[in-house]
């Protein structure tokens, strides 16, 4: 009797995680394509030319047809040359239309690639009907990789994408400095005797060749996605180019693995699922990137608001104490004064916990620690008011508001500098004591 549970019968998708050797071939092919795309994609995204990936991967169609007609085969070498030639032609036409005929750059891209694609569709219909399946070019047939003939022990699609990966990697290593400079500052690159235009054409050729190599295996849509999505994701995660290229390659591989698993589980198109996986990874980065994410920005804003609230509360208690030593705010009054709501309740609790304030019955009292903090803040506030009056000649009744806002950002060094700049005699312009 078999006591082991049948894994595939479980409601959980555990069965999907066991990948067969043919799944691994598919993943390797997808990953090689994704990494090859991500390598050049980083530069497209940084140059704000992401849509060139879309444009080139469609525009190469007539080049492929002509190459096929001339060589009478779907051999990859003639297709590469056809793609490179049309890639260069497309880039040239887009540039020329933009520069000399003053067509806006996005419109000139649109005119050129759609026209070339339409030409390609007509050529396919006229001359090669039957051998070229346009739908397949679009959607890819990653599933069929395992059935393809092999070259050097590898399936042909994997072999070609590996070659392109090698080419892209080599170009990146050899021309790293040049590509980097011409991407970030083309004007400087040109003055340094480096042709930014040549780099542009080189990059576009790489994009075209990469797109064509990937068509057979993964389809144009995965190419367009992988040129843009991993690079944009990496761009959300880092500010350094080398790290960005590394991360985007990693995301490409991850998208291939996740996409294949998900496609197995739901039994759908693998290339489409890899695209969706990459999109999902980008979505994660949008929300959770440590530095540029939406959530981290929200958290940062919340932390800042809380700090400002804490400091305002301490300063207010200090002022009340200063005005009349015997009077104290009640908890309710303090909450009202800093805006009420859960945020104020939270603030008071946090300050009590940090031993900055204490409650005595209904009343709210500063502790010694709290008083030291408050004194520092009120000092910043009054120094800034003095500075505004003495150096910017602002009227007395206009200085409180700006000082109230700036006081939270004046550190010890700035405090010293302000002290040296203003002539206080221990009092602010309203005649109140500046605490030491």
């Amino acid at each position: 009797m078999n006591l082991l549970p049948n894994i595939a019968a479980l409601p959980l998708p555990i069965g999907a995680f066991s990948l067969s050797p043919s799944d691994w071939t598919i993943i390797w092919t997808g990953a090689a394509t994704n990494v090859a795309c991500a390598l050049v994609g980083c530069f497209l995204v940084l140059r704000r030319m992401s849509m060139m990936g879309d444009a080139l991967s469609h525009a190469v169609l007539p080049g492929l047809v002509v190459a096929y007609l001339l060589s009478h085969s779907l051999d990859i070498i003639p297709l590469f040359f056809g793609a490179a030639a049309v890639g260069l032609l497309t880039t040239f036409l887009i540039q020329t239309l933009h520069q000399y005929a003053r067509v806006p750059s996005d419109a000139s891209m649109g005119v050129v690639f759609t026209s070339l694609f339409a030409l390609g569709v007509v050529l396919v219909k006229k001359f090669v009907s039957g051998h070229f399946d346009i739908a397949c070019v679009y959607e890819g047939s990653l599933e069929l990789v395992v059935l393809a003939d092999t070259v050097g022990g590898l399936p042909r699609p994997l072999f070609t994408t590996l070659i392109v990966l090698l080419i892209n990697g080599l170009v990146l290593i050899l021309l790293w400095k040049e590509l980097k400079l011409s991407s970030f500052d083309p004007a400087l690159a040109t003055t340094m005797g480096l042709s930014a235009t040549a780099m542009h054409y080189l990059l576009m050729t790489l994009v075209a060749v990469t797109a064509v190599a990937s068509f057979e295996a993964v389809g144009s849509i995965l190419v367009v996605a992988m040129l843009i999505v991993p690079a944009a994701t990496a761009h959300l995660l880092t500010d350094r180019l080398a790290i960005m290229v590394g991360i985007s390659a990693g995301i490409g591989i991850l998208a291939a693995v996740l996409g294949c698993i998900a496609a197995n589980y739901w039994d759908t198109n693998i290339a489409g699922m890899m695209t969706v996986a990459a999109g999902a990874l980008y979505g994660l980065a949008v929300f959770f990137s440590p530095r540029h994410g939406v959530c981290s920005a929200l958290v940062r804003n919340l932390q800042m608001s809380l700090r400002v609230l804490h400091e305002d509360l301490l300063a207010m208690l200090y002022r009340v104490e200063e005005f009349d030593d015997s009077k104290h705010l009640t908890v309710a009054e303090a909450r009202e004064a800093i805006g009420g709501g859960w945020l104020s309740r939270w603030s008071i609790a946090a300050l009590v916990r940090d031993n900055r304030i204490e409650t005595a019955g209904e009343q709210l009292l500063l502790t010694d620690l709290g008083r030291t903090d408050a004194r520092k803040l009120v000092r910043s506030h009054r120094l800034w008011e003095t500075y505004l009056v003495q150096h910017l000649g602002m009227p007395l009744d206009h200085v409180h508001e700006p000082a109230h806002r700036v006081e939270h950002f004046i550190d010890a060094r700035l405090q010293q500098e302000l002290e040296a700049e203003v002539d206080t005699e221990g009092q602010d312009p309203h005649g109140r004591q500046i605490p030491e």
Partner: protein
Amino acid sequence: MTVDQPVIAALFFDGLNLSQKVMFGTALLGGISGVVGSFAVLRGRSLVGDMLAHAALPGVCLAFLIMGSRNMLGLSLGALLSGLLAIGMVSLLVHWTRTKEDAAIGIVLSTFYGMGVVLLSIIQKPHIGGNKAGLDSYLFGEPGNMLSADLVLLAVVAAVLLVIVFTFFKEFQLVSFDNDFARSQGWPTLLLDLALMASLAVVTIVGLPIVGIILMAAMIIIPASTARFWTNRLHIMLLLAGAFGAAAGVLGTKLGRGLPAGAAIVLTATGFFVLSLLLAPGRGVVSRVLAEVQLRNRIAREHLLRSLYELSESDLPKRILLPIHKLREYRHWRFLPKLLAGAVESGHVESDDETVKLTPLGLQRAAELTKAHRLWEMYLVQHAGIAADHVDRDADDVEHLLTASLLLELEHELAAEGRLPDITPEVPDSPHELGTDPKNTPSSDF
């Protein structure tokens, strides 16, 4: 609606045979996408049409999965919803993150399309029922499938959009050309922008089943870019773009028998684009090359007359006979014989193979030109602080473009400051020596 669609369709369109229907439909589509596309092109949003066309796919598939049939209106509604969602996501990404607009468009385009491909593969499984035959046409376009009901939808969409464009023409014009100004004037620019994008989405989605994804993007961009060559006025541009789009629809379906119709329509539109690129007055290549040649000819003629004046200046008012070799030494010339022949023809000089002499008319013109040149030189020396031996070349570039009123102004200004030399009141002396320093000898490239 009390009368259902097929009845209206029967009233209007059943008298037509299929090819007439197709022609009518593609003309309508071309016309309306030209009009709506004009705003997209002017607004720098040309590729949004491309994105919308791709982003429609998951909506179409979901609508099919929900309805279980190929109902054009239902599929279009699904496409419209996912298109609008895509537009919203792009604006949020651009607003919230450091991702730039181009990358955001690309990301949304490819991810939505990927989702569509996944859904499509689910639909193609045998246990999902319904007639799936029509779905492919949503990707690649098949105008031959056009039904009378589709034509009605297209006509209604076109009419509604035309009314909207007509009603809000002024507002759309403002946001297309100067969005910031419109906002500062209190116009609801976000709303207007959304209205434009939504019309773009509607056109794209009704056009998808007719010409397909990529070619729909083309119909948005190409007729509008074509019209832009011919005019600087928005209402004319809209009319022209509509006309080019409609003509491309009609001609494309007519000429493209036996070819994929969408591709044939787009290639016809491209044909109009290339013709306009070459032939349009003002912005076209031919007229710009012609204008350039005319300008170069005029400048060369003016250099000739001024050189003749300067060479014979010492003997004025007597008009002396100058040997041509002296003229050649004075300045570098290209095509001198042709230049002289032209000047003889217009009555400015008399010339034989060896010599050349200004006519009275030529002398007058030459004096005017020399005066303009020297006034500008003096102005540069005195107001721009340029060294006297450097002004000749700068003046050479500008003198041909000085207008009569500007010259008068220069003369007044110099006279008011007492700097206009009164030795020869008509033509002032040159502020530098003429043709002596070989380094400074102005060369004419013409």
